[in-house]
């Protein structure tokens, strides 16, 4: 199998609450929609190249490259408002569903140390970002738009205020950027959109084609990589050899997900692909030893020790009373936990179970 070429022979699209629209063996065109999002703020998924569907299960769709056509470009420039946003989502931009947005913040700060994708977008793709930003403004109709950038970035977008934000972790995370820009914690009707989403929207506007690539940090640089590219191949074509027991991480080291297999594909939220080799302590099933490190480090001023202990024993309502929903999943509690508890995992479990319970009791309020 020759996989060293720039174009991978297969692509694996990860489904994240998406419903597959294709079946095995089906021939598809480049840009054809292959799965729809079941979450109101998420974009659909499209084939990054023409080919045939090799494998479908609830978690992934794999396609093999074959010759074929590209779908016809969509016509978008006469749309506006929610209609435009809905259309952009259909074409693969992950635009949160919001009725009213007063302040729109475009987050150009890379979330974690070592990530470069947003910086690189600002340096290299300013034109596309400009198009994307104006589409978002047309869609959300905010009263104010701000671009948050780390110090030292000279680029800016027309008619958009620039706010320099510290890039000390975790200051680049959306809730903290919103605070830095508005001076308020969790301000009302404020939406923070990551720069990669602005870029995706810009690409869609420019080409009329769905999102098919994204900016990914690999090693010490960031480059455009086509969605669905197997992470193992990205790393090996970069000259790395993967050994037994290594971890391939999609995203940053504090929040990213470990790939289940080297064939797992890059998705739109992937900001980095990295190989982690050092034998760092992997989280263990351990009880909290009450050292308090997590409590002192939590930027959301929560008590992660209590939250995770409640989650550990299935007492999700108590975790809710401890304000687990405020947690913005920075991962610092797990980084500093001397008992090496899987903190973020417990927190996400509690959030997930609470959301599920709410949905089941039919009380879910409109987002």
């Amino acid at each position: 199998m020759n996989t060293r070429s720039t174009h991978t022979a297969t692509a694996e699209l990860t489904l994240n609450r998406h419903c597959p629209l294709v079946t095995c063996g089906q021939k598809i065109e480049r840009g054809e929609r292959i799965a729809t999002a079941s979450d109101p703020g998420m974009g659909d998924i499209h084939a990054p190249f023409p080919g045939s569907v090799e494998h479908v299960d609830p978690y992934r769709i794999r396609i093999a490259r074959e010759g074929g056509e590209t779908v016809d470009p969509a016509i978008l420039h006469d749309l506006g408002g929610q209609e435009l946003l809905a259309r952009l989502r259909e074409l693969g931009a992950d635009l949160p569903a919001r009725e009213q947005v007063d302040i729109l913040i475009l987050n150009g700060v890379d979330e974690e140390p070592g990530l470069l994708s947003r910086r690189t977008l600002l340096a290299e793709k300013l034109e596309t970002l400009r198009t994307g930003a104006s589409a978002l403004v047309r869609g959300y109709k905010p009263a104010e738009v701000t671009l948050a950038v780390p110090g030292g970035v000279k680029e800016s977008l027309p008619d958009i205020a620039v706010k320099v934000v510290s890039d000390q972790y975790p200051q680049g995370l959306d809730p903290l950027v919103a605070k830095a820009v508005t001076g308020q914690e969790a301000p009302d009707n404020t939406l923070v959109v990551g720069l990669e989403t602005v870029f995706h929207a810009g690409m869609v506007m420019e080409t009329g084609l769905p999102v098919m690539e994204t900016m990914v940090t690999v090693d010490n640089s960031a480059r455009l990589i086509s969605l669905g590219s197997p992470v193992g191949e990205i790393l090996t074509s970069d000259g790395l050899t993967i050994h037994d027991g290594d971890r391939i991480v999609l995203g940053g080291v504090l929040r990213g997900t470990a790939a289940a297999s080297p064939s797992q594909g890059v998705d739109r939220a992937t900001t980095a692909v990295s190989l982690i080799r050092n034998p760092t302590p992997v989280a263990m099933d351990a009880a909290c030893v009450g050292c308090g490190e997590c409590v002192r480090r939590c930027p959301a001023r929560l008590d992660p020790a209590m939250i995770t202990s409640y989650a550990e024993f299935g007492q999700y309502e108590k975790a809710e009373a401890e304000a687990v929903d405020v947690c913005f999943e920075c991962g610092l509690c797990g980084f500093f936990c001397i008992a090496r508890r899987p903190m973020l995992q417990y927190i996400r479990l509690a959030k997930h179970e609470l959301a599920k319970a709410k949905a089941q009791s039919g009380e879910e309020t409109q987002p």
Partner: protein
Amino acid sequence: MKPLNPFALTVSVPPHRHCGTTVRDRMLTILVAMLPAAVMASMTFGMPAIRVMALSMATAVLAEMACDYFMDRETDVNDFHAFTVGLSFAFLLPASAPWWLVAFGSAASIVLGKMAFGPLGGSPFCAPLVGWAICRISWPSFMDIDASMLGMDLTYPLAQLKNFGLDAVQITDTRQLFLGKQLGGLGAIQIAGVLLGGMLLVMRKHVSSIIPVGVIGGVALTAFLFNWIDPSMYASPAFHLLTGSTLFGAFFLATDGPSSPNRQIPMLLFGLLVGALIVIIRIYGIYPDGVPFAILLANLFTPALERIRPKPFGRR
């Protein structure tokens, strides 16, 4: 046949990097921090001190393993916590303590101070103090440092203060106190060693400096107040800080994770409370050295102090 995947990936939840400190590292650092005081104790009291420390640690470890066995749990003695409990308990004993007292107290610290509340992290009390309190109340004469150390030419300044008043205290040279030329808990009074170890813990960020600062501040403030009211009757802040187990308590016992608060302001209040209680117990209580009881009492306030907490991010 060629394997389908030439390698197996590790799949784990984030974070994928860790600050590197584990429970075991922390306990080992605490043990290292106790080393200077242990060496000084062996030099001052000789073989008996070594005997007490070794026996106490060995009993603590065995007691923990026995508990784990009966509770049908996998043992975590390899996290070295039992060693720190055993050594801390020994540090509070007179070097002349009989073997059964050491063994009983050390085992009680582990069984009642730690294991009864589940694995490490559950106990509302600082474990070694539980054993100490039981022994102090059950066998006062053996735990009484003055009575048990008649053979030594050192004196126990706190007992002299308690029983005969400030004028009777023979050691007034702070340098002597600093170098451990006094009686008291065998390791706890090795002030220079304890201070060195405490600095190490704070500098390596294994304990936050807030609680020690609180305790020292609390002792200094309260002692200063009394001393100011009547300097002929009440000892100076320096005396209270350099005698008995004040500093050992400040750096090693009050900072015990599960039994002390976790946030900055409660930690400071907790420290101040311990400090104030130490001086008050020394002045009004029947025990010459108030440190262990002061910390145990303050442990009871931990849940209340923990209620002082900021609003979560973005909650109004």
